[in-house]
């Protein structure tokens, strides 16, 4: 309890680092490095890409520290940058994250996954299936769902993804429905 009361906020640590206190950044980095890496990992399973995006995100935080203003939560600031890095990556690599990914016949991949019964499904960890199911979602739905899982509100997610709250609410609902559907189909048997 006392530790929670005396815990220095992320914004204070960032402001201290802005004044040249590198130890404050080390504390800040220790708090968020794994969660951010997990978010990136859930967004894209390729570790090499995740490391690159994570490094670019933190370097961007460091380089822009002198211009940092505590107008919002640091975590929102951090994940917004990471989200943009992901979008940039997807754009560079021709990922269609604006619409649900479909296969060559035009059917939804999610639907295909749900309909496909994998012989090894029993051996696959449910959590890993969930990650694969996340890959089947559109990037917008995926990001909305993952950011909500990171604890951000719809409003914050809307700001981070440069959209409105209703859209975020719809994306989250759609993502949840499809993920459950996939998981239910896989483990129905």
């Amino acid at each position, binding site marked *: 309890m006392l530790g929670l009361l005396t815990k220095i906020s992320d914004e204070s640590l960032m402001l201290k*680092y*802005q*004044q*040249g*206190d*590198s130890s404050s*950044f*080390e504390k800040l*980095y220790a708090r968020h*490095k*794994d969660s*951010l*890496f*997990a978010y990136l*990992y*859930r967004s894209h399973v390729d*570790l090499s890409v995740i*490391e690159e995006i*994570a*490094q670019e995100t*933190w*370097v961007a935080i*460091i*380089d822009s*520290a*002198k211009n940092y203003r505590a107008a919002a939560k640091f975590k929102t600031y951090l994940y917004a940058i990471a989200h943009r890095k992901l979008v940039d990556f997807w754009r560079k690599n021709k990922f269609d994250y604006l619409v649900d990914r479909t296969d060559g016949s035009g059917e939804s991949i999610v639907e295909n996954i749900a309909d496909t019964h994998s012989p090894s499904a029993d051996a696959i*960890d*449910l*959590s*890993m299936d*969930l*990650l694969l199911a996340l890959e089947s979602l559109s990037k917008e739905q995926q990001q909305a769902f993952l950011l909500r*899982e990171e604890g951000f509100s719809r409003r914050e997610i809307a700001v981070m993804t440069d959209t409105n709250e209703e859209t975020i609410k719809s994306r989250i*609902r759609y993502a*949840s429905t499809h*993920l*459950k559907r996939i*998981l239910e189909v896989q483990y129905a048997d």
Partner: protein
Amino acid sequence: MPTKQDLDDAELSVLLSKAEPPKSPQHVDDYILAHARTQAGASEPGSRWRFLVVSKSWLNQNWFSAVATISVAVVAVSLSFQNFVAPSVDEIALTSAAGRGIADFDVELDATAPLRVQATQSLLSVNELSVEELPVAEEASPTLALKVDNANLPTAPQSLALNDSPVLENRRREANLENSLSPTAAASSTAAVSSLERAERSVAPNDAIAGIESLSTSGLDRDSSTAAAVDTLNASRLLAANAIGNGVERVVADELAQARVAPSVASVASSASLQEEVGDIVVEELVAVGLVRSNPQAAASPAAATRPGLDTLLAADTAAQQSLIEMLTRVLIGLDQNEIAMRAPLEDLIAPLISAYNQLADEPTIAAAADRYRDVRLNFTAFDLPESLAQLMDFLQALEYPEPR
């Protein structure tokens, strides 16, 4: 009560948390933290003084150059400060006076010769010098201070003023006339300071102190000639100091001292005239007359110095005395010829001569007497006479003869 949708979302969150993601790799952490430290060092407040660390290492290798540079800077600063220290007015005046040979006022009285000063008369006159100015002048030039009690200094001009006499008044007017009539007459004036210095050196410190004591005890006793002599010196010094210290103020001391002294003492300054205009000190006139009857060689006054042997000649040669008497009877027309005839010896005629000279009240009469003296002096071949009548009268007055009855 959670809804069905909420429960489903919770289940998904649990499932998602169970899918344990990989942690941030160590090499990524090291790179990010190193970059963070580098950026923090650039904006760290302490980095402003980092040059001191660099300077320390630089000094270890180039300390000699640093020391040399600092030494030159210190010398330059000290020289610049010296230029800004303005010398006092006294220093300027004394420096200027030293160039004219009059800065050596600070005569140390020598106690090697315990002479007995017994002046019988001190006729002093000080112009343009008030009693209040004397202590100021004394303070303005401390190097001119004698070993004299300062408490006695203000009494000096009072005694000088009281002892003023028609003789000196006549001398003053005659000197002015001579200076105005004949430019060459100014040559008769000797350097004031040198004369004053010689006069001062002729006064032993013991006698000076004794004179001061007598002055302090007996007030303005006219018989305290020793004190008067010391006062004369003090007045001379103060006048000179005032002239030097005031810079542009003109101070003229026409008559400073006229005293008869004991045989062991030559003389004191009889008159001095110091004039300064805008730092240019001009000695107008200072005539010191002294005579020692028993020891003529001790005569050290400027007048005696310029006429060595005259007193001896007059004392030994009655013909010379007679020539001088005849010459003066032609110059001083008002002399009583009967009285002159009755008092053949010169020592008996000095007083009447001085009295006749003192009776010359108006300037035309004095000028006429001076002219006659010059004419007679040109044809006078018995011995060398002083250049002016005033000097001759001073010479006679300085002789230690009885006062006129």
